[in-house]
């Protein structure tokens, strides 16, 4: 560890010690104060990342034990939450999808649907990212999608940093994946984290229920963000004459569909269908489907064990474990309800203000730190605020889970932005400009969805 990393580490440690040294307010237990100290440590750790995030997850698990705020049993049993294993299963399925040329075919077919209209091309770039992010974690999608979109942009002669269409397509690819990742529990680690948190509170959210709550928001956001993008970066041409040929060439250049690829693709489709149908009709657990799906993919030759070892980012599993224990301990220690009571004193328990506060706070935090980290910090607090305001915990947790994914403004906001940035088609200034407006639009979209649609379907 070098001097710079040590410097970054000193701030979280100082903050933690300061919170511990403060006089304890009435109504807050020692365990609650200790958990606030862990929170004060973890937020700058997630922001500054002096050590890899997976290790931060380990520290977040260990610190409550050292400070005497939790016992070993409850800490590590929280790590055994079914959603952790759902995540492992989801990554196995995702690894198989990355190996087949299916993702490439899907994204090229989406682009072809746009025809020769530049505006439609931006929309369908977003839709291809969003659709693939329904099926696998968004970061996996953006890694696959950015080379494809950049290649297409170069093939139709878009000049990097000068072409508005290029900017719209590449920023749109990142934003499409980000928004699409909200659509199903498979889209990003924070989704199973939210489900896991709700399970620990005795509330079950299955695949279909998640989609019921999130899909209208996804569709609304895609349309609004697309509108913003073509407004901010109006395409420099009315028609792209060369694109049909470029896409035909690309599709024609894909390897032929082999029997094994077809079998793997069918298995993947079957797994997705199982996620949607089985829990609703027969009450089958999501985690069970994810794990059996992972094994099934292995059996039909969709991947080898080496793929499992090399394509599952184990760091996120550790971060995830830390995140879920942080949430459980904040609630069990009474820290979350203590903070929530103070917040409700300000909002007066108004649903309008509660929704707005949770959405804006989550959005602010997620712009500067890892989505999963932001969600893990705010899940216990957000849901406690809703509980104290007499609103359903499910609503508070889902709001945090969904808003936590929507990071648009900076390269550090989400790896997707940075990965897309390496295409060279847009500058940091472009991202900032688009992200600022898109943030406002998506805050409005989340708020509208929660305040009107969720009320309509009886969430609150």
């Amino acid at each position, binding site marked *: 560890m070098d001097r710079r990393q040590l410097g970054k580490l000193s701030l979280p440690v100082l903050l933690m010690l300061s919170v511990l040294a403060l006089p304890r307010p009435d109504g807050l237990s020692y365990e609650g104060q200790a958990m606030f100290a862990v929170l004060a440590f973890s937020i700058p750790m997630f922001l500054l*990342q002096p050590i*890899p*995030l*997976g290790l931060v997850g380990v520290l977040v698990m260990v610190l409550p034990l050292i400070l005497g705020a939790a016992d070993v049993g409850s800490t590590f049993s929280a790590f055994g939450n079914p959603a952790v294993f759902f995540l492992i299963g989801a990554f196995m399925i995702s690894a198989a999808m*990355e190996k087949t040329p299916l993702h490439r075919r899907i994204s090229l077919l989406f682009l072809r649907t746009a025809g020769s209209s530049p505006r439609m091309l931006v929309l369908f770039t977003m839709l291809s990212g969003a659709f693939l992010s329904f099926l696998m*974690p968004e*970061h*996996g999608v953006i*890694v*696959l999608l*950015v*080379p494809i979109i*950049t*290649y297409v942009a*170069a*093939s139709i*002669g*878009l*000049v*990097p*940093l*000068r072409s508005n269409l290029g900017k719209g397509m590449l920023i749109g690819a990142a934003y499409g994946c980000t928004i699409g990742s909200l659509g199903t529990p498979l889209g990003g*680690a924070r989704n199973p984290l939210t489900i896991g948190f709700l399970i620990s509170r005795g509330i079950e959210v299955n695949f279909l229920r998640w989609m019921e709550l999130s899909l209208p928001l996804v569709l609304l956001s895609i349309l609004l963000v697309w509108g913003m993008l073509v407004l901010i970066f109006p395409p420099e041409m009315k028609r792209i004459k060369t694109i049909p040929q470029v896409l035909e060439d690309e599709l024609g250049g894909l390897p032929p569909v082999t029997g094994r690829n077809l079998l793997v693709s069918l298995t993947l489709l079957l797994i997705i269908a199982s996620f949607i149908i089985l829990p609703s009709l027969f009450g089958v657990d999501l985690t069970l489907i994810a794990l059996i799906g992972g094994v099934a993919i292995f059996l039909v030759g969709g991947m080898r064990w080496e793929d499992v070892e*090399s*394509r*599952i*980012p184990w*760091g*996120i599993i550790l*971060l995830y474990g830390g995140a879920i224990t942080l949430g459980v301990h904040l609630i069990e220690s009474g820290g979350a309800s203590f903070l929530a009571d103070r917040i409700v004193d300000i909002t007066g328990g108004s649903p309008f203000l509660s929704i707005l506060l949770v959405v804006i706070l989550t959005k602010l935090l997620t712009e500067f730190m*890892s989505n999963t980290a932001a969600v893990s910090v705010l899940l216990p607090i957000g849901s406690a605020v809703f509980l104290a305001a007499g609103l359903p915990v499910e609503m508070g947790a889902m709001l945090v889970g969904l808003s936590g994914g929507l990071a648009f403004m900076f*390269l*550090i906001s989400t*790896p997707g932005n*940075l*990965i897309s*940035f*390496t*295409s*060279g088609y847009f*500058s*940091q*200034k472009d991202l900032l400009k688009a992200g600022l407006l898109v943030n406002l639009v998506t805050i409005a979209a989340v708020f509208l969805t929660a305040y009107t649609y969720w009320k309509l379907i009886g969430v609150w």
Partner: protein
Amino acid sequence: MFDKVMISVPMEQFPSLAFERARDLSEYLGSRLLVSYVIEDDLFERVSVSSLHVVTGKDQELWERKMIATHEKIARDVVVKEAKRLTGRNDLELRIVRGGYAGALSRVIEEEGCDMILMEYHSFDLLKYRIMDRSPVPVWIERHKGPIRRIGLFCTNLAPNERAPGAARKLKKAFGAGLESYYILDPGGDVDEGREEPELISARDRIKWTGVVHDRVESFITKRSKENDLDLIILGRIRKRGYFHLRSKFAKKTGASVLLIN
């Protein structure tokens, strides 16, 4: 100095203005043009660090390989085509290099025998200007759009002044521009030592000073450029510590292009 000009294309800005200026240099001074497309390694490293917890090393490796191939395509098919259009030259040379921006460009200069770097002013990433310290050849930071009508030559006791006057006269003639020349005795340098220099330069380069002034380099150049609406500022590369950002600030504050000569 203007025989073979390298136009650098970073991954964060397309240097349209620099290409337009390259057209002038090629037309008026017969400069040969080399386009240097830099695939910046530090960007890929940043991705690797920031996405370590969500994207595995193997996926990153595959992605990086694809992106580099795509950037090579962008350089060959898009950048060169656009550069040819902007410069009006079909005989452009292209070099695609990987590495840190400044280091990669230094390598190309050495290998290709370039005698000047032409880059575009970029307010967002000052690290790009590290090349100003590392480059063995003059660096032209293009900021001014349109023809060069007024040139300001600023010699100072903080910088080497051997080549700047000659370059100024050459560019004055090539562009048919007006030239005003100043010698600045900056209190931040060794003023006594610099006191004799204005006369020596004047005799050696047949330069008639518009003014010899005692002032801080930054404030004087900024003020004079704005008041006299200069399009190009020429000065020796200031080596004094603390002046690193100053040189790019000239372009930012005045809207003029800057030619730094060592």
